[in-house]
């Protein structure tokens, strides 16, 4: 055995003499870090790196089978799912890995922000990190396109429509993005090149830089309230801290990174196993229009924002907001590179994180159930609750039929079933008078189309009579307050 060990050392020595990589690598791994940084809060960066390796490996494995052409991509995914042994599992790991990657990168960013780690001298590390976030999102988007299904096809349509709004060069940019006049073969090839060569290349290079800078500048020490960062004294203070409390990164601090990375890998594997791969949804055939395209999880909030922006604000917001947000992130360390690091003394920073997290969370939640979208099949799939029809006149029941046949249900719920685009109508007659209902139905307004052309007078009468029965049980019917204010000499009959 001893001779085997000696031989192994000799082989290592042979390579080390020629490569000379071992010694600096060991030095880097065992460099001293402040003992306070051996924390479960400091594990997210390394976890993201481990997921990156997983994504590269699973991505290469998928590329062994995937056919990056518009005519065959979808079929090759089906083939991977059903005909290639464990192909579904590799797809699932790559897909879940992507979601975990975005999540971990965001958590890492929040941690770095709250711990003030972006301050002097680590400004550039943060700036590169911002680009890494953008590249990660770029990988998520292009990866979704490579899953060339209905969502990918119409997602590209949404992308092209957004790009087309760029002033002056919008048309040229659309052509550049699609690689042709329509979303087709050249479009997928472009996104394949981006997802497989261009973005990963830049991503890996920047991750290398990011890591080198962490080694060169040292990991951010655990912030203490009142210990201010000053460009004059920081390097010396950090050095003293490292000398005083230093522990070798490997193994004293790195075991936590390793444990967390293993936990994340297990979580990805478990999600992949239990929930399986994402899609592909329907074939990328634009003639199949019975579809409700939706982006992947990381972009649902943008999808929701696009539904809620007022039309006149949409284009400016689409192009100005991202520039401002990215510029703010890039400039953050340059503007506030000194001073307090501890979150307890940076209430604005904490508040910002909270507001941004709640905002993104709320929009993502909305994006999951898209209340702004008509439910396209509600008029044929949701019946009128029997209770609403009980003891009604034939005219009112005829109105219920009109209500159903004219697809009102696609936007208006009754009895909890139907679209959420317009208000639920269970108690509409307690809020609107007959005249107001007629006006609203015929002329529309308030985000409702006018139905004057789609309803005959008799249909309108029946519909309105039905709607007037909807008073949420026994609420009082709505009244026109202006009528009540009239002098009592006027009889309370209708004369308008």
């Amino acid at each position: 055995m001893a001779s085997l060990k000696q031989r192994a050392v000799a082989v290592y020595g042979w390579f080390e003499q020629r490569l000379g990589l071992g010694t600096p690598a060991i030095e880097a791994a065992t460099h001293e870090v402040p003992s306070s940084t051996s924390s479960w809060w400091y594990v997210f960066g390394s976890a993201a790196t481990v997921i990156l390796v997983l994504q590269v490996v699973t991505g290469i494995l998928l590329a062994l089978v995937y056919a990056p052409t518009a005519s065959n991509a979808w079929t090759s995914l089906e083939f991977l799912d059903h005909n290639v042994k464990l192909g579904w599992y590799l797809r699932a790991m790559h897909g879940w890995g992507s979601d975990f990657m975005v999540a971990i990168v965001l958590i890492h960013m929040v941690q770095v922000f709250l711990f003030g780690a972006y301050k002097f001298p680590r400004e550039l590390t943060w700036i590169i990190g911002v680009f890494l976030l953008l590249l990660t999102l770029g990988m998520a988007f292009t990866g979704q396109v490579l899953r060339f299904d209905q969502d990918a096809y119409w997602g590209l349509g949404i992308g092209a429509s957004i790009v087309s709004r760029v002033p002056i060069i919008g048309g040229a940019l659309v052509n550049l993005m699609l690689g042709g006049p329509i979303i087709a073969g050249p479009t997928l090839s472009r996104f394949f090149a981006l997802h497989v060569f261009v973005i990963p290349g830049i991503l890996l290079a920047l991750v290398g830089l990011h890591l080198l800078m962490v080694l060169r500048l040292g990991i951010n020490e655990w912030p203490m309230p009142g210990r201010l960062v000053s460009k004059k004294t920081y390097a010396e203070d950090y050095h003293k801290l490292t000398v005083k409390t230093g522990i070798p990164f490997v193994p004293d601090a790195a075991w936590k990174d390793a444990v967390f990375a293993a936990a994340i890998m297990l979580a990805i594997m478990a999600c992949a196993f239990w929930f399986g791969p994402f899609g592909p949804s329907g074939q990328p055939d634009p003639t199949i229009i019975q579809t409700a395209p939706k982006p992947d999880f990381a972009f649902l909030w943008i999808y929701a924002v696009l539904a809620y922006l007022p039309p006149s604000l949409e284009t400016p917001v689409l192009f100005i907001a991202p520039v401002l947000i990215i510029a703010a992130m890039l400039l953050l360390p340059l503007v506030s590179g000194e001073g307090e690091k501890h979150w307890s003394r940076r209430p604005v920073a904490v508040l910002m994180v909270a507001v941004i997290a709640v905002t993104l969370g709320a929009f993502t939640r909305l994006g999951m159930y898209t209340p702004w979208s008509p439910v396209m099949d509600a008029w044929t799939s949701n019946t009128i609750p029997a209770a609403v029809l009980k003891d009604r006149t034939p005219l009112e029941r005829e109105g219920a039929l009109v209500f159903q046949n004219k697809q009102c249900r696609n936007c208006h719920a009754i009895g909890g079933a139907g679209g959420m685009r317009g208000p639920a109508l269970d108690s509409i007659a307690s809020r609107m008078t007959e005249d107001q209902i007629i006006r609203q139905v015929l002329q529309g307004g308030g985000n409702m189309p006018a139905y004057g052309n789609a309803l005959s007078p008799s249909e309108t009468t029946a519909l309105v009579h039905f709607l007037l029965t909807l008073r949420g049980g026994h609420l009082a019917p709505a009244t026109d307050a202006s009528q009540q204010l009239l002098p009592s000499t006027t009889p309370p009959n209708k004369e308008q």
Partner: protein
Amino acid sequence: MEPDTNNPSAPQPTADPAPNPSSAGHSRRVFLFKLSLLLNGAVGAVMAVPILGYLLGPSLKKPSAENTWIDIGPIADFPEGETRLVNFRNPVTTSWDGQTGDIPCWVRHISGNSFQVFAINCAHLGCPVRWFAQSRLFLCPCHGGAYYEDGSRASGPPERGLFEYQHKIAANRLTIFAGKMPTLAAGNCTKPPLTHIQAAPAEAALSPETDRPQPKDSQWPA
């Protein structure tokens, strides 16, 4: 291999192993190095021309060059008063486009020789709009854009009505001028976008549930 004695640049055994370059020789080498940088810069610039041309090629095409007249069927296929979905093969395709080369559009036969042909793509963000004959509306599944039967905007986030293809009738067949995905930049815009920054009319104050009236007068019942 034998040493190449004919190559004058091969290292001469008589050369000084530790040369102490004179300042004249040093500046000559620096000059040559700078010259080599310049040379590579020039080569790079020349090389960039075809690369950029290749890369930007698709974006330099004129939109009109990609549209052609496409026959989408005999007029008899489109009953008067109805709006029907028609698929056509895009005129510009590659053999590996597969189904993505099939493009749908909505054909509305108003009456006689009067037609409207709408793009499938919502004017908001390009999702496929669906026609609901009963309520005479096009609805978009993505963000809920709604259009009237004549393609004008009814409600929702779109800034304008549906994109319309130019069409003509020849020998009782309907042809449309298509080939390029309709977007706000593609020039399919036949009507200017609606302006939405307008003061709400005073009457809206009477009923808080109603917004400003739709600007499309033809849709009004009276």
